[in-house]
């Protein structure tokens, strides 16, 4: 008999990722509707202190899987520990954030449990007593709604920032259940971990791209785009004209003769919109253009535009984004 909706708690050095709270919020609602309990699953070392606080976000129970073997994330260690517990407790659903780790872990756990997994979801809803997930396919050009009708637990990874953190109750605590985890044989041996302070994503992988054209007037001015990109966790791109001028290397070039991109947001600054550029970015979900020429072709494909001096507007945007990213 299936018991409970589980949320995998992703943390690094004791700091819980926001997506965990988002999943707890959404999981709370589902658990209430289904009349099940909401459990958080917390593997790691020295993480027990986090556990009670998860109650504020909706968890009824927290399984703490403390072990030296789980100090650092490894595919085998975490998948073995989580799957072993799931086999014993038989939850009805397991939710994870669609992060590098969540994606890695979910596939292994799903196969160990012989169940279905919906990855990269952008929504979760209850329909006729069944959890239904929405996920983008074909780079967001279509969506699919899918469920896992019979196999249990239902598993899904859900993108960060698509579910709201709501209904938190200060002071609410969760029941803490300490479990001795079975990390099993860990075959991936960590030799080195390199964390970079600021790594911008690769252009073709980025969700947000801030791109500059000839209107940037010089290589030194790309600093203002980089500042904006860092606030948004975005990649920086350039038009062919800016690359030709030697302001950025060819690897930054967006366009048909450079890289074809389709991010969620493309912010074009001082780019006039030559056809080769448009062909390489017009499938972006949302296009923002800043250009001083109201006749610039880029405005024909832009969802939002500001006609004006980019040197004035871009830093203002950076400040505005800083405010909302903090909230």
């Amino acid at each position, binding site marked *: 008999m299936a018991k409970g909706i589980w949320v995998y708690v992703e943390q690094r050095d004791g700091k819980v990722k926001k997506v965990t709270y988002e999943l707890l919020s959404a999981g709370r609602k589902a658990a209430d509707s289904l009349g099940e309990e909401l459990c958080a699953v917390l593997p790691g070392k020295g993480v027990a202190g986090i556990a009670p606080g998860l109650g504020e976000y909706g968890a009824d129970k927290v399984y703490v899987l403390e072990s030296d073997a789980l100090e650092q994330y490894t595919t085998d260690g975490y998948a073995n520990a989580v799957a072993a517990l799931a086999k014993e407790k038989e939850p009805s659903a397991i939710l994870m954030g669609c992060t590098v780790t969540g994606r890695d872990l979910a596939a292994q756990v799903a196969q160990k449990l012989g169940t279905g997994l919906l990855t990269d979801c952008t929504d979760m809803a209850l329909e006729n007593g069944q959890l239904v997930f929405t996920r983008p396919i074909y780079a967001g050009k279509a969506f699919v709604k899918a469920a896992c009708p019979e196999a249990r637990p239902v598993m899904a990874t859900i993108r960060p920032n698509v579910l709201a953190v709501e209904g938190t109750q200060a002071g609410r605590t969760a029941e803490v259940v300490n479990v001795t985890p079975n990390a099993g044989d860990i075959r991936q041996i960590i030799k080195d971990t390199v964390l970079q302070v600021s790594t911008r994503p690769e252009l073709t992988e980025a969700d947000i791209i801030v791109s500059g054209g*000839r209107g940037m007037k010089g290589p030194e001015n790309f600093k203002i785009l980089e500042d904006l990109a860092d606030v948004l966790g975005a990649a920086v791109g350039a038009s*062919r*004209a800016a690359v*030709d*001028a030697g302001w950025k290397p*060819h690897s930054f*070039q967006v366009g*048909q*003769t*450079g890289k*074809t991109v389709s991010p969620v947001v493309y912010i074009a600054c001082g780019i006039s*919109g*030559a*056809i*080769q550029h*448009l*062909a*390489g970015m*017009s*499938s972006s979900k949302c296009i923002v253009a800043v250009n001083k020429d109201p006749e610039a*072709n880029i405005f*024909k494909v832009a969802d939002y535009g500001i006609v004006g001096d980019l040197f004035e507007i871009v830093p203002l945007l950076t400040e505005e984004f800083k405010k909302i990213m903090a909230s």
Partner: protein
Amino acid sequence: MSEPLMLFDEVRDAIVASGGEEIQMCMQCGLCTGSCPWGRMEEKAEFNVRAMFHMGRLGYDGYESDDFLFACTTCNQCGVKCPRGIKIPNVVRSMRSVICETGGIPKNLKAVLGSINSQGNPWSQEKDDRTAWTAGHDVPEFTPDKEYLLYVCCTSAYDGRSQKVARSIVDLLKAAGVSFGIIGNEEKCCGESVRKIGAEEEFGNLARHNIDLFNKKGVKKIITTSPHCLYTFKNEYPEFGAEFEVVHYSELLHNLVSGGKLKFSKPVAKKVIYHEPCYLGRHSRIFDAPRELLGAVPDLEMAEFKGNRDFSMCCSGGGARIWMETKAGQRFSDVKVKEASESGSQVIATACPYCIVMLEDSLKNQNKDEEMSVKDISEILKESL
């Protein structure tokens, strides 16, 4: 130690089977490579036609790359020189088609083919926006009583810059009282450059679609805005049963001017240098019409590139190169812009949408876009109406 090179006849057989039988006529004299614009660039290029023919014929590896097999712009400068009369661009096309069938074409060209298949144009633009260029402009629709179909190149249909060319041509045709109309969103790309990628299947699909469409609509005569569409409609569509009379707009306007139906009265007091589109000049033998049209504009001072007509240098946008990146120092259009600037010209005139894209990029990257401009001859003629 290097491995011995083994002959591999099947490669030659495959090239021949794809329509490149002329590869066997090559005597390796090297006049092709000697005349190739790649050899005249500041920075040494890998591309070498003669060597490629040699390797293809013997079945050696090593030329299947962006900078070699897919470097050729199919400008046909070599074809003019070849003492064996080989249609070299056609052999290059057949070599590419062997690769293309297996899916191993350059990344950028894969996106182009994807866009061709799903949108009917190479620019990844919505197929239903093909007539967006007509917004606010009165452009007649083609009906069977119209004499001509005006077929607008994908580039002029979608590129904001090039849309101006399409509108200029419409205005000129109207001024001359030509009976014409457009079909628009149902049209697909002519496929000229698609075939040059080697994508025979995609090209066949496009040709069949357009021929059916034109026949269904009652089209007999076609005016093209681009020399590339002209070339393929005229020389390649008949392979699929097409029987249309095809003219480039410059030929038609030239006839209208000669017949007194079109006059240019407003002076354009500028020095204008004419850049020969390869597919208008060398490939289609239309050399005089554009020059005489420019000559009919009052006060316009004509200039010529040192290499012109059969010896004009390509802009580097043909043969699907418009969708690929060419390193600075190897761009033919940069060389052309430099020469145009040295000639003291204010305008580079041409009659091909690809040439405009390439030359304007070069004008910008050499910071000459304030002193000079690139114009389609139709734009100059319209100014002079």
